[in-house]
């Protein structure tokens, strides 16, 4: 069930009405309803993998209790590692086994040994990386005595499976979400309207920006050998917009949906394409994952405490693991490595925490210097996304090489202008411009539309929302799977 599907448009109001009208007086029943709805939501993908989700939930629930009740450190450690190994084991089997088997066979073939790797034909359970990380953060926090184990199974299961975040995050923390699940929730009109507004903006990002850009990104990346120079730059730009619209749009819908149920989820995006350096970009892109790696990997590895070498090593580990988390393909690892390289000069010059506030905090327009910094960071990001999108490292290198070689070729420049006029037309550029204007004007807030038009007369503001809803319905691109579902 996709967030932008008719099924979800029926599912959400039904659960909402049941939640507030039928179970509204009992927190226990509200949580049971959320759990049942979440399991139904997940089963709509593939009911067989629901058992995997249930198993993972039960595992972490019981190991959490065992850790909490363990008489000594040794017992606690035993249950901790049981949970970590089983959780990562599932992830390894479902997500990474084939990658390792194929890579090993390929490596052996370099030495003249032909191995036919035994690979498994299994589809990747949707959201496995997300709910595994949920569970892991919970057991790690218990292990380090940051939180007590949760004794109420339903509440713990809702924490893991709450449907808005189940399949593509944000990756929540027990310290943030569990207290909200345990507390009585009351309906708040303004928060609910705010939730709907965020859903509306998320749908625009996903269905108009991401899906329309995807058509061109796919057309250009899938036939990269037919294009060159600027058209390939266009392809990379379309993918850059696609992945942002897709993932941040999904996150907006998830956050808005959760708010309808009185629950606040962690913010996942904070206008990353307005970043002035790559360190700022990574504080603004997929925040829940970046902070997860910071807290559960970077800090335990020593973080920024050791010498320069230690900081460089830890930074590379974080970026490479983050790349690998995205998928079992060398392209993601190279993407992570490239971002680590971008990060390196900032780290060595101790300038990685220079830009903590959003750009142009007190002015409408950025300074020339800020604009230049944003442009450079954006260009570096676009270049890295080529590895993320390409089917192999080789094809990414070929893509970049053809792109750079043809930049000044007049014939290829004409080709790209033709592509823009004939294939893209004028609607998409207008939508992209509108999108950037709204994002820029709302950059100081939780999401772009949060305060947009709030001072306008009610009729005009609601007319704007109506117009936006109609644009979504009339101009939506061909439905594409959310990119992050595959992770």
């Amino acid at each position, binding site marked *: 069930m996709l967030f932008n599907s008719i099924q979800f448009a029926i599912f959400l109001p039904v659960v909402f009405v049941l939640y507030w009208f039928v179970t509204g007086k009992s927190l226990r029943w509200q949580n049971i309803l959320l759990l049942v709805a979440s399991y139904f939501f997940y089963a709509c993908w593939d009911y067989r993998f629901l058992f995997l989700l249930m198993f993972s939930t039960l595992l972490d629930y019981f190991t959490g209790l065992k850790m909490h009740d363990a008489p000594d450190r040794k017992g606690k450690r035993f249950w901790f590692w049981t949970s970590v190994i089983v959780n990562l084991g599932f992830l390894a089997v479902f997500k990474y086994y084939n990658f390792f088997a194929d890579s090993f066979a390929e490596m052996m073939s370099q030495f003249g040994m032909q191995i036919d790797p035994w690979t498994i034909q299994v589809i990747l359970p949707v959201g496995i990386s997300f709910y595994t990380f949920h569970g892991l953060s919970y057991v790690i926090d218990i292990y380090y005595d940051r939180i007590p184990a949760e004794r109420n199974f339903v509440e713990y299961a809702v924490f893991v499976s709450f449907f808005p975040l189940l399949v593509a995050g944000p990756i929540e923390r027990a310290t943030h979400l569990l207290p909200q699940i345990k507390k009585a929730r009351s309906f708040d009109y303004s928060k609910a309207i705010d939730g709907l507004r965020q859903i509306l903006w998320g749908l625009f990002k996903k269905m108009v920006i991401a899906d329309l850009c995807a058509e061109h990104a796919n057309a250009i990346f899938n036939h990269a050998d037919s294009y060159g120079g600027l058209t390939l730059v266009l392809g990379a730009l379309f993918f850059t917009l696609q992945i942002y619209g897709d993932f941040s749009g999904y996150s907006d819908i998830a956050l808005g949906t959760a708010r309808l149920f009185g629950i606040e989820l962690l913010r996942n995006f904070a206008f990353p394409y307005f970043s002035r350096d790559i360190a700022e970009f990574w504080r603004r892109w997929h925040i829940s994952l970046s902070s997860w790696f910071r807290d559960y990997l970077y800090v335990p590895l020593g973080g920024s405490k050791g010498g320069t070498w230690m900081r460089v090593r830890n930074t590379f580990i974080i970026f490479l693991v983050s790349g690998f988390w995205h998928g079992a393909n060398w392209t993601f690892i190279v993407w992570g490595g490239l971002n680590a390289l971008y990060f390196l000069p900032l780290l060595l010059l101790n300038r990685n925490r220079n830009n903590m506030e959003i750009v142009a905090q007190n002015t409408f327009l950025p300074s020339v210097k800020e604009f230049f910094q944003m442009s450079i960071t954006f260009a570096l990001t676009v270049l890295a996304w080529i590895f993320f999108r390409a089917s192999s490292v080789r094809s990414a290198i070929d893509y970049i090489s053809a792109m750079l070689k043809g930049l000044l070729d007049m014939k290829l420049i004409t080709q790209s202008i033709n592509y823009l006029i004939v294939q893209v037309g004028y609607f998409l550029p207008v939508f992209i411009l509108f999108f950037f204007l709204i994002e820029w004007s709302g950059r100081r807030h939780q999401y772009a539309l949060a305060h947009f038009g709030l001072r306008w007369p009610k009729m005009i503001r609601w007319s704007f929302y*109506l117009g936006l809803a109609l644009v979504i*319905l009339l101009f939506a*691109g061909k439905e594409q799977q959310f990119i992050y579902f595959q992770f």
Partner: protein
Amino acid sequence: MLVKNNNSSIFSFKLKKFILHTSLFLALVAGIFTLVLFRAGFEVDEFYGRFTTPKQHSLILGTSRAAQGLNPEVINQELGRNDLFNYSFTNEHSPYGPVYLRSIQSKHDAIGHDGIFILTVDPWNIGSDKNNPDDESLFRENDLMLHGMWDVNSSPNLLYLLHYYEGSYYNILKKKQDPQLHLRPNGWLEVMVPMDSTSVEKRTKDRLKLYREETLKRYAFSSSRLSWLGKTVEYLKPFGKVYLVRLPVSDEMIDIELEQNKSFDVIIREFASTMNLPYLDLSSDNDSIAFTDGNHIARGSTPIVSRKVAEFIRNHP
């Protein structure tokens, strides 16, 4: 207790206000959107129009070869009728099988005994997965549009527009049409591609390459599909006369089809004889026929082929 009641009523009031506001907003969006959908006509795409007409008395059935190659208007004119409708789709969507038969039954107006039914056959629409051609669970149309189209006679057809239409709804609002594909109200798909020799040569080369390198490797003759063709004939027979037709293709395509199944023609002749059906094989009758890509009859040649089929029907009343 009083405070609790006040809180509870405020909560209930706000919740109801939220639902009222949201419902009004969504109703307005849905209303405007529905008005847009009501503008949808035959120009929407190459399939939609066929699901918007009432049930039909006489049908042309088959894949894209029939969709493009047989114009009901010409046949109707030749036979002095006005009821023939082209209900053919594509090789992926409408090979003979349970999905297509169910759809035909939904589209067919099961009244009277004087209908005519032209069932076009070729090795592909009686072929299936090479590894197990008789396994119905592997039929390629199982997860495609016709399978889910339980309503094929409504205008506007919301089921199609909401589930299967892949374009932008803005095109419906503007009544924007693909300049190369015009679906006519009688179900005939008029394809207006450039017919200069270079364009035709390129398309033919691509099409033959596709058939030789992919389609030929994917499909084998399916006895199960032949039996579904039989069930389709049995369903239609009580309502009129059923004809089997094999449409013309280019010589190169005939070679590929022979490679796929040398005895296809013999099998179909036997089938026709068993079912007591007139069978017209035009596959090699391609001297005066132009093709867009070696596989589909060009619109300029459609009247020629349609007239030949009409003449055959006239001769086999």
